[in-house]
């Protein structure tokens, strides 16, 4: 005969059973949560009705009717374009500033992180000062500094600084020669893509050959050659299908060419310098985490310093660097929403700002904006997790 001690507990009280308790607690939590949601839903519906706001996503099809400073890859007109177009422009602008920011932040961060490890005292201390100053000042203050204190006091268009013959710097941004594609331009990006794919294959082949025969292959220079040569050949086949537009220095403004607006520039500067300081610390601690014995062992095996760094130190350091680096990238993308404060037309400024104020559809606008950031966060963490798995230690 067995007694079921588990289900009835010591005193025979059903509530003494942890499993019963867990079910009861969770039921209470669900009831409370549902009640909370219903309460809020009821209030919201009532308030919306009171204010005469129709809910739903119909407003996305209505014309927006306001001007946007920076529009890329799209046609936008104040009269006909809808709030959906505004949303897409906002997303494009956010992505553009985020990815250029990530590129420069990584560059600055790795350089500063390595300089921070330099044995040269003065270089080391300068990197330390950069990191400690920038990390401890709010990003918004830095953005305002770049926007209102540095870029706004540049000369007016008429007295632009001129670098070389056709780069102009003034308080409306930087103008420089741009490329205007004409027919057949498609071959150049395609050639670049082919070159990148070929690079991957070359790297794999070279590695296999080295493992089989021990012979080294100049992979890096092959890459450089491929990436430069193929697009040039592509351009030559099509007869150089583009014209270069130089900025034209008029009396009150500069026409033609390409230009970077001060809003974009200050956001890019602020984001990359701020995030770069955090990345520098990550890089420094990552490299420091590889014990010095590894270097010594590599040297005693006869590896030269450069090979030691590439084959022994970096692969081990990257394992420590990648996870916090991911979260810095995500921070940078989220911080790009500070664009609102200096008037760069990103998704938060356009959609959760202007569109929201015009239509009054607060819930929908904020919901879509949050959903956008959430999906970006999830996508990047998925990619970085995959990469992290790729480089992480293979254990039994």
């Amino acid at each position, binding site marked *: 005969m067995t007694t079921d001690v588990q289900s009835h507990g010591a005193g025979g009280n059903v509530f003494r059973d942890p499993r019963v308790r*867990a079910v009861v*607690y*969770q039921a209470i*939590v*669900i009831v409370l*949560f549902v009640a909370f949601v219903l309460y*809020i839903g009821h*209030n*919201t519906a*009532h*308030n*919306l009705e*009171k204010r005469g706001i129709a809910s739903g996503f119909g407003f996305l099809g209505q014309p927006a009717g306001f001007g946007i400073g920076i529009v890329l890859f799209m046609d936008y007109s104040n009269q006909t374009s809808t709030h959906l177009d505004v949303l897409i422009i906002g997303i494009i602008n956010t992505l553009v500033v985020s990815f250029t920011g990530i590129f420069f932040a990584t560059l600055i961060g790795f350089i500063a992180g390595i300089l921070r490890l*330099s*044995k*040269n*005292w*003065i*270089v080391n201390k*300068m990197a330390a000062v950069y990191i*400690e*100053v920038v*990390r*401890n*000042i*709010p*990003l*918004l*203050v*830095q953005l*305002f*500094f770049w926007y*209102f*204190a540095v870029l*706004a*006091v540049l000369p007016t268009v008429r007295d632009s600084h001129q670098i070389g013959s056709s780069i102009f710097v003034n308080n409306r941004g930087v103008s420089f020669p741009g490329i205007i594609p004409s027919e057949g331009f498609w071959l150049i990006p395609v050639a670049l893509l082919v070159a990148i794919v070929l690079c991957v294959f070359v790297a794999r082949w070279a590695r296999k050959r080295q493992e089989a025969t021990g012979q080294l292959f100049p992979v890096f220079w092959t890459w450089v050659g491929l990436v430069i040569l193929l697009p040039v050949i592509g351009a030559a086949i099509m007869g150089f299908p583009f014209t270069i537009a130089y900025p034209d220095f008029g009396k009150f403004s500069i026409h033609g060419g390409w230009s970077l607006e001060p809003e974009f520039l200050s956001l890019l500067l602020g984001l990359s310098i701020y995030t770069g300081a955090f990345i520098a610390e990550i890089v420094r601690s990552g490299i420091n985490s590889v014990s010095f014995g590894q270097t010594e062992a590599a040297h005693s095996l006869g590896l030269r310093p450069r090979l030691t760094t590439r084959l022994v130190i970096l692969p081990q350091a990257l394992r420590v660097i990648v996870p916090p680096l991911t979260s810095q990238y995500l921070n940078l993308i*989220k*911080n790009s*929403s*500070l664009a*609102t*404060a200096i008037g760069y037309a990103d998704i*938060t400024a356009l959609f*959760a700002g202007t569109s*929201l104020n015009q239509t009054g559809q*607060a*819930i929908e606008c*904020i919901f879509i*904006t*949050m959903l956008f*950031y*959430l999906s970006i*966060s*999830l996508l990047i963490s998925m990619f970085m997790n995959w990469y992290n798995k790729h480089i992480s230690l293979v254990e039994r």
Partner: protein
Amino acid sequence: MAIVKTDRHPDLPPPASQTGVVGWLRENLFSSPLNIILTIIAAFIAWEALSTFLSYTLIHANFAGETKADCTDTGACWVFIKARFGQDMYGFYPPEERWRVDVGYVLAAIGLFFVLSDFVKNKKWPAIYLFGFVPVACFFLFHGGYFGLEVVETSQWGGLFLTLVLASVSIFVALPLGIVLALGRRSDMPIVRMMCVGFIELIRGVPLITVLFMASVMLPLFLPEGVNFDKLIRALVGMSLFSAAYMAEVVRGGLQAIPKGQMEAAKSLGLGYWKAMGLIVLPQALKIAIPSIVNTFIGLFKDTTLVLIIGLLDLLSIIKAGTTDKNWIGTATEGYVFVAAVFWVFCFSMSRYSIWLENKLHTGHKR
């Protein structure tokens, strides 16, 4: 005849080129040709930066005077900060009532000193004072309405005072909420766990601005008609929820570092879940997590500047408003350098404190 030296020759001094100032210079600045070039370039940049900075902020700066017209030298016009200093620190808090804010600062500073420093070993009473008495006292002091104190509406609060209020209230709410969320995330109950994970990941996946927008635009929609929070409370709700999610992850990190055996041992002694958590696991976990908690707090402190976007007058917005004043055109650099310096002093000292604490707590593993 043999020459035999019987006594040991005295040690020679190390070569002059490897000791002292010269040795240090050779070792650290001029060890190789590349290093020499680096040193020269870096020294040039450092000299340029430092001299520009000093001549702007000190040597050619203007300290005396009342208006923009008194700033005649080429450097910074600190008169701008001096003339508006009261507003920068307290916002539109009535000048004759500002002593109340100062008393609050002193009360909090006493508590912080005893809780954070090493002078008192038993932190029980300082903690009760700081987390129990000070918040209540500060509320009555700052807001007024009782004990014959005049009411000062939160719309008049501003400047550095508002920044500090935002940061301290948010951390005060976020820490306990974060602990609850972290425990929920590690709970055995699937529904509780799912809800905590959902909340934490949702908040951590979106920027603070959208959370603040949500708090300022959507909170009034969520509440029954007629109930209306003032702007400061709405911002505080947003900031607290946001930092609670980050705090939860930090606390979870601490909880994960405690071996399972601690919980099992506590339970085998007959402690229930809450007693085992509260008396055995959490104290150890929080101790490990303290440096990260301080780091999260630094992030939160910097993030308080974002309330500018929803229209609160914190230090940054007061300064920004000042730089657009028509009497003070062209003082943007001074304004932002000043804000940057204030934040830098706060954040840098907190990060030093966190490093000191980390060294103090990591006694076991250091050789």
